[in-house]
Structure formats: C-alpha cells, structure tokens
C-alpha cells in the first residue's frame, strides 16, 4: 500500500532524530519508489530531523555521539535521494569554506559545525584539518564563498586566524567574505581583537551566527 507523503517525511525526520540509519535508508528508498520529490524528502524530511537533533544538542540533551549518529542517518538518506534530484531544482545556496588551522589536527568540533551548516542549507566546502592558512583564502576565492569558518583547539595555532584575515586585507578582498571563528581557546574578545565578523562557542550557535551574518547578503 502506498503511504502518504506526510507519513514518509515524518518517518524520515524521526529516523534521523532517533539515530536510526537503517530506517532512514528504508524510508528514503520508499520515498523514491512512491515518487516523492527528492528535494522535498531532503528538505522536509531529513533536514527537520537533523535540526531537531540540533535543538536537543543546544539543550544538552544530545551530545556529540548522538549528533554524529543523527548526521550519519541524514547523510545515508541524502546519498539515496541525491541521484533523484531534478536538474535545476536545487536553489543557489550560501557558500562557506571551513577548516582547522594549520598546526592543529583536532577536527571533531569543526566536523560538527560542518554537519549543522549542511543541515541548514549552506553549501559547505570542507578543507579538513591542519589547513595551510593560504588555502582558506584560495578556496574562498575559487568557490566564491560568502563565509570563511576557521576553528582551532590549540593556543599555538589561534594566531593563524588573524593571519588569514590579514591575507584577505592584503589582497583587498576582506569585505568579500564574512569570517567566523571558533574552538576551545577562542572567545568573542579574541574574535573582536583580530577583526573576525563572528564567533560561536558550539555547533548550533555557529549556524545561528552564520545565518545572522548572511542577513542582507545576496546568495
């Protein structure tokens, strides 16, 4: 029996929220089989589930393990649905470049921020960890990014963030990008000091700040 759109979307959302990758895979196949629009299934099924997880993360009900398993389920669903996206159906998105500063290989925080931006409709270009500082600038220019996000867990590498901002200034392109920073030793005061546009102290906060920074910025 063919189920209603609303039921399938709810199951997709609940599957992500409940960290149930197997169910999400099953319902994603069902969505394809009954001819649901793939973008609809992602945006109104998987993503709301992930955002619900983000709310619980904010409230300290979910922690890193739960958020990672929710994202595994979300990405498993997206994998199945992506080939069925209609050409031209995907709208232009805000683009961001994200990475962990050179000299630092700790990336779990950065990965959480990436997941939450993914779930919030940003196009994320992930440079990974231990990223040479010039690569932030190069990649941002290459993809015509709106936002540059840098993270570090270490005090030895935090000054790299200021260096990237200086590089942008030297090239005369500082105003082409918003710059956001975060990570263990980073604070709002440090962000102010180096002239970053935004700071957040956790993954869902990062998305809030990122969205605020995009207010009035054309896609």
């Amino acid at each position: 029996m063919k189920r209603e759109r609303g039921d399938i979307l709810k199951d997709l959302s609940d599957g992500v929220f409940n960290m149930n990758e197997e169910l999400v895979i099953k319902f994603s196949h069902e969505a394809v089989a009954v001819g649901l629009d793939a973008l609809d299934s992602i945006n109104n099924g998987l993503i709301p589930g992930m955002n619900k997880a983000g709310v619980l993360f904010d409230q300290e009900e979910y922690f890193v393990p739960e958020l990672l398993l929710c994202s595994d389920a979300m990405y498993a669903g997206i994998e199945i649905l992506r080939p069925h996206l209609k050409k031209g159906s995907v709208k232009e998105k805000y683009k961001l470049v994200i990475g962990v500063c050179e000299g630092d290989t700790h990336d779990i925080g950065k990965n959480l921020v990436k997941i939450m931006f993914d779930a919030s409709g940003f196009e994320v270009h992930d440079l990974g960890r231990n990223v040479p500082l010039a690569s932030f600038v190069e990649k941002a220019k290459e993809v015509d990014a709106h936002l540059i996000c840098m993270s570090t867990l270490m005090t030895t590498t935090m000054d790299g963030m200021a260096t990237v901002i200086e590089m942008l200034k030297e090239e005369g392109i500082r105003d082409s990008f918003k710059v956001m920073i975060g990570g263990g030793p980073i604070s709002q005061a440090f962000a102010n000091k180096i002239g970053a546009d935004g700071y957040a102290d956790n993954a869902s906060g990062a998305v809030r700040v990122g969205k605020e920074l995009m207010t009035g910025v054309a896609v």
Partner: protein
Amino acid sequence: MGTMESFAADNQTSLERVLSYLKGEKPQRIAAFPLILNHAARVLGVPVGVYNRDGKVMGNAHVAAWKKYGHDLILIFSTTSTLAEAMGTKMKFFDEDAPQIDVPLIKQHSDISKVKIPDFTKDGRLAVYLEATEICVAEVGSQVVVSTVFGGPFTTAAALYPVELLTRDLIKNPKWVHELLEICTQAGLKFIDEIFKRKALPIIVEPIGSGSLVSPRHFHEFVAPYLKRLADHIHKTGGGMPAALHICGKTTPNFRAMLEADFDIWSLDAVDMGEAKKAAGHRVVLIGNVNPANMLKNTAVEIDAEAKDICEKMGDRIGFILGSGCEVPINTPPANVEALINAARKYGRFDN
C-alpha cells in the same frame, strides 16, 4: 603591578603548602598550580620537540621552570596520548609544539587484539616521562610535589581509536568499547605503580570525558567507573596520596557523574568555579581556572584581575588552589605566570 606591590613572604615550601591541604589545615596562602607543561621547554630554552623526546631535557626543563617560578606543583607531561602512543598509536612530532595523534592503532574493531599493556621501560616515550620524573624528584622533590600526568582510560581509548568512531560506538557497540576501556584501565593502573615507585604523584587527565563530548549518561557508563578504579588504586597503594583528575573544557554537565569517580582533587577549565564548588562540596579540592588563552594573550594586570575574580568566587577559599584552566600555552609571557602565582599570594591568604 610591579614595585608598588607588597605581600608577606611565603613561610612554607611548596611541599608544605600542599601538605596543608592533605592534612585539612589552612596553609599560609592558597597554592598556585599554573599548569606548566610544554612551556617548561621555553624556560630551559630548548625546542619543544627536544623537550618531549628526551627525559633528561624534560626533567631539567621542569627543574628550571620550578626554580624560576616557584609554582606549587611540577607536572611531567607532553600530551594526553602518551599512554596510547606506548600502546601503538603513531604520533606526529613538531619542533615547536606538542605532538599530535597521527595514526591511531585501531582501524577496525578486530584490531583490539593488537592493544597491549605497554612495557614501561621501552614503549613509546614512557621512559622519557619516568626519567624526567626521577630527575625532578631527586633535585627538588624535598621542596615541591612532582607529578606525572597521563591520559585516563577514556582519553587513551580515544587516542587508540579515532574519537569520532569511539563516540559513535558508545551507542552502537558499547560492549566493544568496554573491552577497550578495560585494557586502557589496566595500562593506567600499571602506570600508577611506576609513578609511585618514583615517589611522584600520578595525575589523570580525561579531556575526552569533557561535557563538550559526552553526556552525563555516557560519563556515568563509560568514564566514571574506569576512573574510579584508578582512584581506588591510588588510595590503596599511594600511602595517603590524593587522587587528582584534570578535565579540560566544559565539565559542568558532568559534575555529578564526576563525583562517582571518587577523586580528591579536580582541576577544572571552562566552568564557573562557584558552581563547581557547590557541586563538589568540601569533598573535593578544586584547581582552577584562569583562561589558558588569556595566559597567552592578556597582560599581567589582566591575569591578576581574572585570578582575583576567581578567588572571590571561591568564598572561604578552603580547599581551593588557584590554577590555569588547562595547559599554560607554550609561549606564555613569564610575567603572566608570575602574575598568577602572585595572585595566590595576594588574594589567597589565611594568615591575616
């Protein structure tokens, strides 16, 4: 700051000051534990990459740092992954920074068979730590407590197996995680024995158990029980030595679960120390928590103000030690370390 300042001279050695806490007596002033780790290399003027691979250099660096600053605890340490390194995880070394994990030992669950309790005479850099410990105990152990710091079971597990996979397996494969934690615990128990043999204090660091990573429920199930076995072992075999635990980052959500681990001393980072005191009561001595990035970036005057604020939050200051929230950054200006210690002399007095 500077010439205008005056405070009574210390009339206790660092060792006497710290022993006052253990005896439940008030010291002349509170102790100061700026967590000087790799920064010791700077005091001796050697590259960090040399410091953390040569026991003599590491020991001499800490003796030199103590002679310069007179802080109340020597901490032999380079990274939280040292035990895991000795068990087979490959580290990446830097000339001017602490090593970081390069290739974790465990790639798939079956690799758990490769995890062995290390040989403390030759695996990884354990011998470096132990030699450094011996040097400090021999040279200044009559005046200051020397501690050797290593990663707790959960942190060691997360250095043997990528933390992103480990955290997922808390939910997906809990039984396997417990098996891994068991081996890490046994390695930790042996390390404690080696440290006690050298008349030093073992200190456990469990940053991966931070509230930024795991929930109170998971802390209760995967972190606290194993930490408690280390604490019990310290209590049983340490001849009155306290069990000390450091957890960096945000630990507030896990305070209650941390109490289960039965440590006598908590060293805390990004928390409100007043709240921590409320949670821990008089059962736990608290160390904290001048912001480490501020140690690097702020002026000595600002460090003094921040330390004063923390001391005021601690009310009667009984069972309180002024410290940095996490490692004193390698390139911290010496004046900031001195400001932290002087703040203990100014705002932590019991003799007036």
